[in-house]
């Protein structure tokens, strides 16, 4: 009996491991990594140290980055740090060992990534800070969207639609520099209105790890606290907006209260089409990834960068070269002319939950 049980368990383990080995296989075929270089032509080799693939948007970054590398006939090696600084540091070491010509880093932690920059620069490898700004004056380029502008645009939109009333502010993770920048910008836009008393901020909170369920609980509690008298919830990303809208739905308030977002995730676009979420910020990913690849090639070839502007870093007060791309406000009125037109989202996906007769014409 005992032996048969052991055999059974071992068999199950074997099955389990087979399943495990099976799954990553599918993944690699998916990511379509280029074959490792034995290339006689000595292709340029770009290392891209990513932080996470947990959110849809980073998957898009990865896909776009790979596609553009392929198109421009350069090799790229991509690592993913699973939201861990120490793994990212190891990844960067490994990329440098593999002899990349240029390094693109989407840092997990802006400050800890500075030591990675030091290391790369010591080996003469130029570094691009991708999407998130690394806390180092030595980076060769910062490629991103206009982050301060995102916070500003969200707050301005809210202020324009709801010039008076009770506001709830749902910020991102306080460990994320972008969340802090957005918070500062939002507050500065709303300052005149809060000073005059037109707007009252009745609750404000940084949400640990941008968790939707934490945002849900926060807004549930804010609604209780204020007896449902809330006119706008200024949310810093779409994931949390989902949680916020669940809280509003429970009180029959979805669609009646302004809810903002960021990232233009598919589910957020669906909610905008249904009228439950008011707006989101669309950051075209493909131009960002393309710009990064093109700039990386220029740096590897030691050519001058086109379109780079000096960007003043808050932390050191020094300038770093930067390419900052435009962001777009998306609401119910311009879904068709922005995300759908760009091929960022499919028409049938966005309007999946809207009855056919109420959909706009394609």
């Amino acid at each position, binding site marked *: 009996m005992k032996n048969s049980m052991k055999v059974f368990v071992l068999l199950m383990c074997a099955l389990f491991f087979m399943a495990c080995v099976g799954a990553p296989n599918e993944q690699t075929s998916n990511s379509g990594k280029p074959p490792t270089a034995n290339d006689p032509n000595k292709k340029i080799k770009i290392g891209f140290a990513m932080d996470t693939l947990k959110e849809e948007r980073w998957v898009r970054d990865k896909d776009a980055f790979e596609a553009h590398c392929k198109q421009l006939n350069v090799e790229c090696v991509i690592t993913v740090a699973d939201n861990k600084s120490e793994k990212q540091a190891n990844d960067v070491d490994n990329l440098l060992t593999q002899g990349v010509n240029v390094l693109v880093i989407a840092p997990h932690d802006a400050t800890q990534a500075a030591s990675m920059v030091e290391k790369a620069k010591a080996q003469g490898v130029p570094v691009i800070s991708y999407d998130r700004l690394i806390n180092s004056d030595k980076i060769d380029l910062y490629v991103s969207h206009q982050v301060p502008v995102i916070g500003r645009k969200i707050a301005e939109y809210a202020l324009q639609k709801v010039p008076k009333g009770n506001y709830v502010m749902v910020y991102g993770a306080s460990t994320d520099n972008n969340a802090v920048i957005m918070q500062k910008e939002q507050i500065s836009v709303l300052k005149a209105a809060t000073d005059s008393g037109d707007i009252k901020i009745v609750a404000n909170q940084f949400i640990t790890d941008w968790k939707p369920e934490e945002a849900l609980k926060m807004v549930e509690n804010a609604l209780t606290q204020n007896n449902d008298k809330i006119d706008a919830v200024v949310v810093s990303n779409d994931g949390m907006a989902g949680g916020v809208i669940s809280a509003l739905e429970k009180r029959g308030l979805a669609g009646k209260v302004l809810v903002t977002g960021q990232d233009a995730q598919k*589910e957020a676009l669906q909610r905008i089409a249904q009228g439950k979420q008011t707006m989101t910020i669309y950051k075209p990913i493909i131009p960002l990834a393309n710009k990064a690849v093109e700039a990386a090639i220029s740096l590897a070839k030691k050519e001058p960068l086109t379109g780079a502007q000096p960007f003043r870093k808050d932390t050191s007060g020094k300038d770093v070269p930067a390419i900052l791309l435009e962001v777009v406000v998306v609401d119910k009125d311009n879904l068709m002319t922005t995300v759908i037109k760009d091929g960022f989202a499919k028409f049938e996906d966005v309007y999946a939950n809207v009855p056919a007769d109420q959909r706009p014409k394609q």
Partner: protein
Amino acid sequence: MSENKDFVLGEEKKNTFNLQTSTLRAYTMIGALALIWIYFHWATGSIFLTPRNLSNLMLQTSVTGILAVGMLMIIVAGQIDLSVGSVLGLAGGIAAICFTNLDYGLAPSILAAIAVGVVIGIIQGSLTAYLNIPAFIVTLGGLLAWRGAVKGITRSETIPIADPTFKSFGQSYIPPNIGWILAALAILFVVFMAFKSIKAQKKFGSGGTNPTNELLKTLLPIGAIVGFIYVMNAYAGVPIPVLILLAVALLGYFITNHTTFGRYLYAIGGNADAARLSGINNKLNILKVFALLGALTGIASIIFTARVGSAAPDAGTLKELDAIAACVIGGASLMGGRGTIFGACLGALIMASLDNGMSLLNVRDFMQEIIKGSILVAAVGLDMAGKKQN
């Protein structure tokens, strides 16, 4: 380990108040909860103890509470499960994929989530029990592996749930009159159990208590049931997740107190060798308890997904620690052999009360974390100090 013998043998030490130590612990915890509630009620300007907020509070307890019930049984058996958060994410993700992407319908999607939990529980349980890999290691591996699996199957996308029936598992309320019917049934059950215990005592002549005392004892639970339904109905009715939590807690109470399986768990956690030598199949029981936690995690994942309205690839991160903390605050010992379902649920409620109250007070995120961490350590410290005195 010697402290656990009290439980295995079923006779506890009495203290100066002439109460069993576990009963005293329960009263202390209820007292602590009352203090927390009164403080928050005062600090929030009389908002905390309104029916509406209490309804929210119970809702916010439900997922952690269900996980804590399963975790308690694991901890009592001297094991640990660190993979709960990842399994919650995976089961929820699979339910959402079955439901939204594959259109399998509601019941199959829910069953899929529970099945995923059970299968993972069986895998981890058998690795622990039959291959003697410590549960800490098996489930630490699980924490990573299952999270990876969620990211893989969802392709790191958040999968929305649009259907109102699915969402109702997280967001709806039971109509007030049905709430009262359930309350009536619960009261009947309590009274029935009291009569049964009187009868048993007469038959076996074990207890010296008289029947009137036994009936008076039912007044407390009856009062609690009526009060609870009254407060919930004063807002919108009992939230469905809370009803599920109550059902799970009752089931857990029944298993731990009235089944051989449940008693075996205490015996195994108290002294594994003694349990084995007295003829208990330790390995099979450990496998079973992991499968049970898996099933409960599957149920919790449905509520979690329905409440947020989507399945995110990072859903449930750190939930295992919430569940473990709830058990420990509720008086469970990580050495095994000690802990009650009631304590674990109360622990979950205390944690949720702190979250809810601090959120109402708009306490900054970093302070919330510091306070929760300190209270966790303080609760166990007090518990230990209390035990020493006995």
